[in-house]
């Protein structure tokens, strides 16, 4: 960490910010416990939970058996008992063995019980590409969960949001899918420890512009900011919206931006077919139709399984792919 004049403003990578946020939540509420594979002694394969088992004990940070359905299903039972479990899924592509417990049980139990059972469970999912890893380690499965009623889904893009949003997710009385953009784990950013958190589900304009609006979540926000910087050199003014929440989606800041710019490009690492970006495109077309000067365009991963790592640069949208879409939008 760098020395800061204001001690409450610290510079740290997202991985450390998440660790600090989890520590805060655990210290604040003894019912918060962490569960996952290799998260205790090892501190998780990404070291997000490093040191927490030593600090809070083996009954608060559980090195579970290697079974994703088991982790989620027992977290459901612990939530019934009054605990607030935070589950770590080791990698995005390993979440599917837990899919039934997430979608059929965790997401539905509050509804099934007509509100008498609360399900304050957080499922942390390191997700996305750019890390050159093998199959099942670079996926973006968020659309499955954003589609599922009863779940909330969020994804921070900065260390500051990660620090605050993980605490808000844990405080939520509903299940929250917490998608951590693993390619953003290591770059540092300012975290305002004294600040107050923005609402968990608020989207936010992170760069002002006038010619077109770009929107994304997670690691793709960084790509959009790069694209906006490049476009500015060409005299094109792009506004960038960080979605932050995938379910529910906070549309108002986005619609306000589109009403101003008249153009929208949605970017995502996930495959575009039936994606979060599809939903945004449809909703903006419904609600801001007469403000649009061009069709809403999507820039997505291709509709193929995540490719071998040597092809990931071709699969994942980069600033150039975003700017190609900007050019098309501006051509209308």
């Amino acid at each position, binding site marked *: 960490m760098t020395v800061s004049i204001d001690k409450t403003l610290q510079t740290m990578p997202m991985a450390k910010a998440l660790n600090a946020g989890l520590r805060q939540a655990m210290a604040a509420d003894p019912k918060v*416990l962490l569960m996952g594979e290799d998260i205790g002694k090892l501190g998780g394969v990404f070291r997000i939970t490093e040191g927490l088992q030593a600090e809070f004990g083996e009954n608060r940070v559980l090195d579970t058996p290697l079974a994703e359905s*088991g982790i989620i299903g*027992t977290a459901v039972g612990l939530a019934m008992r009054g*605990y607030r479990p935070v589950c770590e899924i080791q990698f995005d592509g390993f979440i599917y063995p837990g899919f039934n417990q997430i979608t059929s049980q965790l997401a539905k139990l*509050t509804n099934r019980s*007509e509100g*008498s059972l609360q399900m*304050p469970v957080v499922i942390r999912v390191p997700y996305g590409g750019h890390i050159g890893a093998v199959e099942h380690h670079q996926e973006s499965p968020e659309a499955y969960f954003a589609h599922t009623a009863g779940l909330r889904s969020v994804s921070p893009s900065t260390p500051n949001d990660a620090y605050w949003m993980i605490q808000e997710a844990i405080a939520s*009385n509903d299940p929250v899918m917490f998608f951590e953009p693993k390619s953003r784990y290591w770059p540092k950013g300012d975290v305002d420890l004294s600040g107050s958190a923005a609402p968990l589900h608020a989207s936010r304009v992170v760069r002002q512009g006038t010619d077109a609006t770009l929107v994304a979540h997670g690691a793709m926000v960084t790509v959009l900011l790069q694209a906006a910087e490049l476009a500015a050199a060409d005299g094109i003014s792009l506004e960038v919206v960080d979605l932050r929440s995938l379910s*529910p989606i906070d549309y108002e800041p986005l619609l306000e931006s589109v009403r101003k710019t008249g153009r929208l490009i949605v970017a995502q690492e996930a495959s575009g077919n039936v994606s979060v970006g599809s939903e945004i495109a449809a909703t903006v077309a419904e609600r801001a139709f007469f403000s649009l000067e061009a069709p809403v365009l999507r820039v997505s991963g291709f509709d193929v399984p995540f490719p071998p790592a040597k092809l990931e640069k071709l699969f994942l949208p980069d600033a150039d792919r975003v700017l190609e879409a900007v050019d098309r939008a501006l051509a209308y």
Partner: protein
Amino acid sequence: MAETDSTSPAPAVQVLAADGTVAPTASAEPYLEYLDRLTSEDHEQFYRDMVLARAFDAEAANLQRQGQLALWPPCHGQEGAQVGSGRAARAQDHIFPSYREHAVGLVRGVDLLGIIEVMRGTTHSGWDVSDPSNGNFRPYTLVIGAQALHAAGYAMGVSFDGATATGDPDTDQAVMVYFGDGATSQGDVNEAMIFAASYQTPQVFFLQNNHWAISVPVTTQSRTPLFQRGAGFGIPSVQVDGNDVLASYAVTAKHLDDARAGGGPQLIEALTYRIGAHTTSDDPTKYRTQELTDSWIARDPIVRFQAFLRNQGASDAFFQGVSTDAQDYAADVRRRTHAIADPEIGLMFDGVYSDEHPLMIEQKQWLEQYEAALDGSAS
């Protein structure tokens, strides 16, 4: 002669012979002290529970046939396993049923009209688990075996709370999860046993082997007696004659007490039989013979226990009284079923999330206005 499963090399724990005489197997010996604590009133209660559950079950199946319910999963034939185990649980215990445990719900104090409401389509659960009068009986779970993990997690929480293994069986809590022979093929049941063993949870896995997973026999699901799988998880396991209510009671009471005393998870396989169809949508004549079903009807848990009670001196008046009560109970269920109101729009939206959610507010409001407009145009 003890009841044995065709796949089982060892006799199941049995107390009552098929003719109702008291003839405990050697394997029953560790459990007999639990039977010594029972009074004749307890025996009569067991009988009443089983008869009422069967009357309820038959009435519900009839209501389905008459179009009042979408579906009915009958518990006919499994009353001995269910009443015995359900009565063995203590008040502070927590019960995670599958979806056929009507008799367990009855003995835990649940108004069984709640199950009717689920099958009628007016609710997904039918009773409030947070209401103590419902005996900590959790909502039915329809996805096979999923509840086994919930029970294991809940039991982990009981341990973390220090609410078990203090040495006081009157307050120490235990958890019991019900599932069937088909569910033993599900990953969730196996993962639940792994988590339970890892965390030495205070819980009983109560497996009702009713021999059929809809149309597939247990012999397809397992080449070994199911209770023997417990050994592979490091879980003490026993097989009991589930159509013997006394054996079911004693075995469950002991293993719940072992679990609450810090002994870790336990597995009970209760051998029983699904006399009826899987549900009212099923047709058992397509996959099993009447001769086989008849052989199990001959081992009916109620008939056997009735013979036991007669040997104990129960009067005709007692049996007649229970019979009349059961008829009255079924008639009351029928009457109240016809009076169930359809749910309001709010039921669809209000319980999806615990905290406020913009889509729920927006869509509920839209539907209410839409419906109101339709009503307006109709008048």
